[in-house]
């Protein structure tokens, strides 16, 4: 990694210059208000444990607090520097003979970097009149590799979204397109920079006030500040892979539109100090943004980055002239991310960040607290890491800088990543997702009263893009129609479902909740077996896919029973076949000759019905039944059906005996139907028929003239007005639950009991003629009557 020692500090000092509220670079040192806490306990413990430790000692100045040199006059500055040197010398004198090594001495800040052993550390602790505090000289890793994971961007990369195919516009001091971190990324360039006699001169490469095309957006030539745009671009879209470093910007796959809008100001009065300096006219910034707007048809732009600003506003500044072009961009789905400013304000924002339709960005530290320099206000949109960010700078190098300038491109890059995932999302939709999923951070600084979300890209993605977790059921046979439930996250009304590869189509998609959809999957009859990826797509274009979510499979077929399993020559026998794996297209065949199957109907995956036609000349004997699925799978039941000799069926008759009104309920036990307040009539019927019969319906009539009762098992009444059947007075009902239909066998000479609900009170009075009609499975009927005694 290219290294430029001291440059990082230079950048920090530059940043400090442009801040109205400057921040001492050692501000991260914890406070120590009493001599007893001069040395932090963990420092003492580490020194004892390891023998030596690198520390930074803050010198206690006789004058009290250190004053930033920019605020001091020449004489006071010299006095402070002399104090620093004097106290430092006294400290080093006291350390003489102790284990220590001076690492760095500073002239302008009251610090001393030393490597010390426990004895020297004790001496420092005892020197509380000279030493304000001692803290560990921590190793600060480059923070772009920290800030990118902190906001969850690397997790989004793992889901395939790194900004590829999306362009971010960096409206700044220009971008060094040849920087390895940005190699091949700058695809669009422009420059808007003004010459005003005696005030400013253009920094466009062609010397004119505007330029477009290759080279136009090159980094401007002022060494003091033109690193800025390249640094910002690296945070938004730098790619470590091309630079040979282990970290990348937020949208490492995105491309860059470099727009240089700064002019070289030549008067010290304009620069607030030494001239020349780079400042940007609002008119040039607007021109730069209008160029972004103009190329939107040819570039897939997600966001424009404005890491610049000026002034302070305690309320939205919608009269700012930049609002019109920001609104234009927003209307076509391009966000303008703008730095909130570095004044350290807790209730105001710089312009143009204060525009209500801009996405204003405040800065946090890697510890997730509001950066001391960051402006904050109730109308700040988002927070992002902005402190000590290590990114690309001019000359092919890298450097560290802090500011809301550095926070803003974290948001700009985030926009690219999310737009790649959700191309149709509006600025408001993405902003809402970022605001609702961000990590809330309260401004705990003095006067701070605002809590705002620090962006969490992976969570925002989850809110914008549906994710499919499971599909149930997850398989179907060719020609099947399968109602399914789809579970996941991020579903919305209007979500659509598709499957790939072909062969399965989704219809009737219904939104149940953000975590559940229902749909009907239709498997084509000729669909190839195998897995299908199921994709849910939201109206905003965001989609989520579950690989192999649904499978087309030919079910394994089995046969467990055939009922009835025999028939005589010349008969037509409806049969029910039970088993598994039955689906549309399943066929039934019998071995040998003389028996054919037709009218195959799939009741369920475990039951089908068919009609077996037995030829009149069919040979007697067993036949194997084979059930074959549409996919070719089959099962055979050996001797599943037998052709038997016809049974000579003699005449059947039925005798009936009235048992009286013995109980107020139909039947007994678990299957009994409850009482209705009137005792029910019961009768015993006895069959006389050789070979017995299977009774399929029963009807009982009473001839009571007032309200003749009719009870049927084939069409039962409601409530308790039913005709029940049992093998004995206290036996369980033979009626089917629910339908009350019957289908029971009675042997020759066998009997059964019928129960009839007495619903008028007169049907079973003495003298009533009660007639029972039984229908057998062959369609014949017999009738028996009796008179109630």
């Amino acid at each position: 990694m290219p290294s430029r020692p001291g440059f990082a500090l230079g950048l920090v000092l530059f940043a400090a210059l442009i801040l109205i509220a400057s921040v001492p670079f050692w501000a991260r040192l914890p406070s120590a208000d009493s001599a007893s806490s001069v040395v932090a306990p963990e420092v003492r413990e580490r020194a004892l444990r390891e023998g030596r430790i690198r520390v930074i000692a803050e010198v206690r100045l006789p004058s009290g607090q250190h004053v930033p040199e920019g605020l001091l006059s020449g004489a006071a500055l010299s006095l402070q520097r002399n104090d620093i040197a004097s106290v430092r010398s006294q400290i080093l004198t006291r350390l003489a003979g102790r284990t220590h090594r001076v690492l760095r001495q500073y002239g302008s800040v009251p610090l001393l970097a030393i490597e010390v052993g426990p004895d020297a550390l004790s001496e420092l602790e005892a020197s509380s009149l000279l030493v304000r505090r001692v803290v560990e000289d921590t190793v600060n890793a480059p923070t772009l590799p920290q800030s990118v994971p902190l906001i969850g961007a690397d997790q989004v990369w793992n889901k395939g979204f790194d900004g590829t195919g999306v362009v971010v516009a960096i409206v700044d001091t220009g971008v060094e397109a040849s920087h390895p971190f940005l190699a091949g990324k700058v695809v669009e360039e422009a420059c808007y920079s003004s010459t005003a006699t005696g005030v400013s001169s253009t920094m466009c490469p062609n010397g004119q006030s505007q330029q477009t095309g290759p080279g136009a957006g090159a980094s401007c030539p002022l060494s003091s500040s033109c690193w800025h745009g390249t640094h910002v671009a690296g945070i938004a879209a730098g790619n470590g892979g091309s630079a040979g470093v282990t970290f990348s910007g937020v949208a490492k796959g995105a491309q860059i539109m470099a727009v240089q809008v700064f002019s070289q100001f030549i008067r010290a009065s304009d620069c607030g100090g030494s001239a020349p300096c780079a400042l940007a006219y609002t008119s040039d910034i607007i021109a730069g943004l209008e160029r972004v707007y103009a190329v939107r048809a040819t570039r897939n732009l997600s966001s424009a980055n404005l890491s610049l600003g000026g002034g302070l506003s305690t309320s939205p500044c919608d009269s700012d002239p930049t609002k019109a072009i920001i609104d234009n961009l927003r209307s076509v789905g391009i966000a303008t991310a703008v730095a909130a400013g570095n004044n350290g304000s807790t209730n105001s924002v710089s312009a143009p960040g204060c525009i209500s339709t801009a996405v204003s960005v405040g800065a946090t530290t890697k510890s997730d607290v509001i950066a001391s320099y960051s402006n904050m206000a109730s109308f700040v949109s988002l927070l992002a890491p902005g402190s000590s960010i290590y990114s690309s700078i001019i000359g092919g190098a890298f450097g560290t800088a802090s500011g809301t300038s550095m926070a803003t491109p974290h948001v700009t890059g985030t926009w690219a990543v999310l737009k790649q995932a959700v191309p149709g999302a509006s600025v408001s939709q993405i902003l809402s997702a970022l605001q609702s999923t961000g990590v809330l951070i309260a401004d705990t600084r003095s006067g701070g009263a605002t809590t705002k979300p620090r962006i969490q890209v992976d969570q925002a993605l989850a809110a914008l893009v549906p994710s499919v977790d499971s599909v149930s059921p997850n398989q179907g046979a060719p020609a099947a129609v399968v109602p399914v439930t789809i579970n996941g996250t991020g579903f919305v009304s209007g979500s659509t479902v598709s499957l790939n590869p072909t062969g399965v189509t989704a219809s009737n998609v219904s939104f149940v909740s953000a975590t559940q959809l229902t749909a009907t999957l239709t498997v084509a009859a000729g669909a190839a077996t195998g897995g299908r990826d199921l994709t849910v797509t939201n109206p905003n274009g965001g989609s989520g896919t579950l690989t192999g979510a649904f499978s087309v499979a030919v079910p394994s077929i089995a046969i467990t029973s055939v009922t009835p399993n025999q028939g005589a020559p010349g008969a037509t026998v409806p049969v029910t076949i039970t088993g598994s794996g039955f689906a549309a297209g399943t066929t039934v065949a019998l071995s040998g000759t003389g028996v054919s199957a037709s009218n195959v109907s799939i009741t369920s995956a475990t039951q089908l019905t068919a009609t077996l036609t037995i030829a009149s000349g069919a040979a007697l004997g067993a036949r194997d039944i084979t059930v074959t699925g549409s996919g070719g799978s089959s099962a055979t039941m050996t001797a599943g059906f037998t052709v038997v000799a016809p049974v000579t069926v003699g005449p059947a008759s039925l005798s009936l005996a009235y048992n009286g009104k013995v109980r107020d309920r139909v039947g007994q036990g678990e299957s009994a139907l409850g009482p209705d307040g009137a005792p029910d009539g019961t009768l015993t019927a006895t069959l006389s028929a050789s070979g017995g019969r299977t009774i399929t319906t029963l009807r009982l009539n009473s001839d009571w003239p007032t309200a003749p009762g009719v009870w049927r098992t084939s069409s039962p009444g409601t409530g308790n007005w039913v005709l029940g059947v049992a093998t004995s007075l206290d036996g369980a009902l033979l009626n089917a639950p629910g339908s009350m239909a019957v289908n029971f066998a009675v042997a020759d000479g066998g009997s059964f009991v019928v129960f009839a609900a007495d619903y008028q009170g007169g049907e079973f009075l003495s003298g009533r003629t009660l007639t029972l009609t039984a229908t057998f499975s062959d369609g014949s009927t017999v009738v028996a009557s009796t008179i109630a005694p």
Partner: protein
Amino acid sequence: MSSQDFHIVHALALLLAQVVVLTFFGSGVAQAELVIDPNVRALVQAGRARVLVTLQVGETANETLREQAIQRAQDAVLARLPSSHASVVRRYTSIPMLALDIDAAALHALESMTDVVVAVTSDSRLKPQ
């Protein structure tokens, strides 16, 4: 030309420009109160100032028609400005605005164009943050 003649010619020119403005884009556009940035007044007292002039243009969903209306509004303003007192810094295509370098006389002229000029604000200078 005497000073009086100049004022007469100037007044006629302004009147003609007013007619042009009303003919081409003024009808149906409500007039808003013209806002002058106090900083601009202070700056022009000391010489010239870069300003952003926001123009009033009727709304239309058609982008081409809107851009044509913006251009007409810009042309109308420029036609009514005393040429030696103002110069164009930037013209914009998609937003109804002009960036100008003006002096006090030009500001005075802009203030009279309440039919088309909505606001005159200072072209502020912004820093990297």
